[in-house]
């Protein structure tokens, strides 16, 4: 059982300015839970993880592990770490030892295991991660995925209560992430070890976890089951993140706006996210909306968005201060409106906090 209260961490930059990485992190983690921590870069996910085993001691708040305040002065960090392993992004295997020695080292030196027992256990663990035949080679000769599996075995050799995974697949070639995530998934299913995983692999996070922390700006922004976080996120920031939303925003103030420039940017956006087939529709809808249907309604915000998760592409047109659709009037170009509706798969008109939005799903 890990309880975190008002955890904060500030760094002092060399130039004297202060950077607050963790602001106010609170959570309770039960034994056997598998937690993934997701969120944009630079929001303190790794710092949070490294605070839990005191590699980066926090500057405020408290962490209670199994009833003990690990931030108390004089608390023996090495005792905590023997029960709470860590798997690093860069593997950090010891290059001067063979794979077997890497795994046996800690049990022999720290648990007082005999060399023979430790080696037998190491071979067993290597078998578990599928690398029994690599026992006597040096880490240099292994691929990234193999190194990370050895690192996991090294961690397991200490028989930990909990394991912290710090972006275990980020340094891997995409073709190798599978072998590592499979091992972690298997552990999550069978071992009963508490696991806290920082990751950018959304599919993996969804499958493996019992609970997900969405971290943003130094706090746990949203905390829930995979279904809650992925399918029914409460906060828009969570949604943007989990749906891997990409956005392109333009503010049109007058007729003098650079429409050609906007077209060019949208074309590049389509190429970048591999939706060139939607480029024509986007151009035509944008043209009809901005220069025919909504030309009287500047200033106009145009948002082109694409979700990496669902593949949904949308064009949104927002007008500040409106409470109802400007397309209901009698002088609206009906033919143009019909063409827009034909090209989109969905046509949504809705009021927002600031004004009114017309959204076309393409």
């Amino acid at each position, binding site marked *: 059982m890990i309880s975190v209260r008002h955890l904060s961490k500030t760094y002092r930059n060399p130039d004297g300015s202060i950077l607050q990485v963790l602001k106010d992190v609170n959570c309770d983690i039960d034994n056997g839970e598998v937690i993934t921590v997701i969120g944009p870069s630079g929001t303190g996910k790794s710092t949070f993880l490294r605070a839990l*085993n005191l*590699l980066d001691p926090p500057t405020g708040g408290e962490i209670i592990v199994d009833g003990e305040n690990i931030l108390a002065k004089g608390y023996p*960090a*090495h*005792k905590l*770490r*023997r029960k709470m*392993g*860590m798997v*690093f992004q*860069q593997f*950090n*295997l*010891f*290059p*001067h*030892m063979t794979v077997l*020695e890497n795994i*046996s*080292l*800690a049990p*022999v*030196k*720290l648990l007082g295991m005999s*060399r023979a027992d430790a080696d037998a256990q190491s071979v067993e663990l290597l078998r578990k991660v599928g690398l029994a035949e690599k026992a006597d080679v040096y880490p240099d000769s292994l691929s990234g995925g193999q190194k990370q599996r050895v690192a996991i075995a*090294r*961690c397991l050799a*200490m028989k930990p209560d909990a394991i912290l995974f710090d972006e275990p697949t980020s340094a891997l070639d995409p073709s190798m992430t599978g072998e590592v995530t499979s091992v972690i998934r298997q552990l999550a299913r069978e071992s009963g070890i508490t696991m806290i995983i920082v990751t950018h692999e959304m599919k993996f996070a969804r499958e493996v976890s019992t609970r997900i922390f969405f971290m943003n700006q130094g706090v746990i922004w949203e905390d829930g089951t995979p279904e809650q976080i992925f399918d029914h996120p409460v906060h828009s920031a969570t949604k943007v993140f989990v749906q891997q939303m990409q956005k392109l925003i333009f503010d049109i103030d007058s007729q003098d706006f650079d429409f050609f420039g906007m077209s060019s940017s949208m074309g590049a956006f389509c190429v970048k996210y591999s939706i060139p087939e939607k480029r024509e529709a986007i151009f035509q809808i944008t043209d009809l909306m901005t220069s025919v249907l909504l030309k009287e309604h500047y200033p106009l915000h145009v948002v082109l968005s694409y979700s990496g998760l669902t593949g949904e592409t949308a064009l949104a047109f927002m007008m500040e201060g409106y409470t109802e659709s400007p397309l209901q009037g009698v002088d609206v170009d009906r033919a143009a409106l019909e063409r827009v509706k034909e090209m989109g798969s969905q046509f949504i008109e809705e009021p927002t906090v600031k004004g009114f939005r017309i959204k076309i799903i393409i």
Partner: protein
Amino acid sequence: MRKILLTALAALAISCAGDKTPTKEIRSEEDLAGLRISTLTGSCYDMELSERDDITLVRFNTETDIINSVAIGAVDACVYDEVVFNADVRKQLGVKIAFHGKDEYPAGFGFRKEDIELRAECDAMLEEMKADGSLDSLCTVWLSDEGVDPSTLTPPLNNGTGEPLRITTGCSIAPISFMVGDTWYGLECELMYRLGQRLNRPVEYKYYDSASYMFSLFGGMSDILTGCLFITPEREETTAFSIPYYYFKPAYFVKDPEAKGSKTGIWTKIEESFRRSLIVEQRWKYITGGLWETVKITLLSILLGSILGCGICACARSRKRGLNKFAHLYNVIVTGIPMLVLLLIMFYVVLVNTGLGATAIAVIAFSIYFAAAAGEVFSNSLASVPHSQTEASLALGFTRPQTFFTVVLPQAVRYGLPFYKRQCIELLKATSIVGYLAIQDLTRAGDIIRSRTFDALLPLLIVTVIYFLLAWLIGLGLNLAAGKNRSL
């Protein structure tokens, strides 16, 4: 080692500079114009010839090199005391006297100016010996052109019970003062032994390099300065001299074109060279003794210097800026001072009057020097181990000291060993300058043998091979030591 190389290089450079043999016979000082003349560094001949700008002066630190440079044709002529390069030596090297110098030079013994009593005793002894003719007969015996037969030497009477009479000589050459085994013989030595008996003080001889031996008197390391020391007004300003015991005459030596190489075959020559350099008078004992000194100084300096280097490394890696600065400053200062200068400063200034022996002082100086190099190697090696290795070890539950010794250190050793090995070998070679402190190390052993045999090549070769083997052994030893340093 450095000296050996310099000597060899100097000889090579000179011989390369131009191999013209003088067509004209040299009969007077005028004939020397345009020629290359070798002489002893800092000697009276050096000072006089320096005033002539029509000759090229080549200075050597030992008598052996002066005469050998003539014999191998590296210079056209050399100038030195006639009695030193006697008929025997000249025949052996194929050298002859071109002409005799006009002047005579009074030779005496040097004292500290405040040592009036000791000098008075010495003068009184010399006066008495002059009066009864024993000084003359002594000089005749020692300075005959046939040289001295070592088999006729009898061990000197040296059983004084008082305070030791410490004698410095800058000259290890027959018949002035030379070593056979551990004992010094020669004209000067016999006079000194007599003085010792007269004062009931046992005589202790030390052979310093001629370039620095004057310091030993002023530094209080010795009581009397000897070694073919000519009395000049300039020297009298700093040193008090006894009355002259002899007037030396210089001679100019040139290669003898009529001297034919002996008809013996090359193998016989090499065999003879070996016999003279190693077997006769058990001269191999100089080599083994010198080897022991060199090994002792090198190993102790590596040990002490490495311990000190750990301290420097700890300072360099410390979070305290003051300590960083100290480590940086230490490195800048120590690496900026030539090793020889550091050694002499330690011996004659910093550690003078501490009662430490020359070997101890050499070890201290070399440890200071080695600590800078070792400290740098250590901190670079530790820095080569990424911090992520420390983190991985800590995360497994190792404490910081455990992490250092199980994870960081073995990797640092693997990285730093070649650099450390190199520094150790550099140190070994650097110790070849301890002859300046009258320590008979390996290099000095070669010099002593050369001064007795006038055979330049073989002792150099032997010494070189031994240095090479030592360097190889150091590398091997370190590899073995590091090889044991396995992970578990």
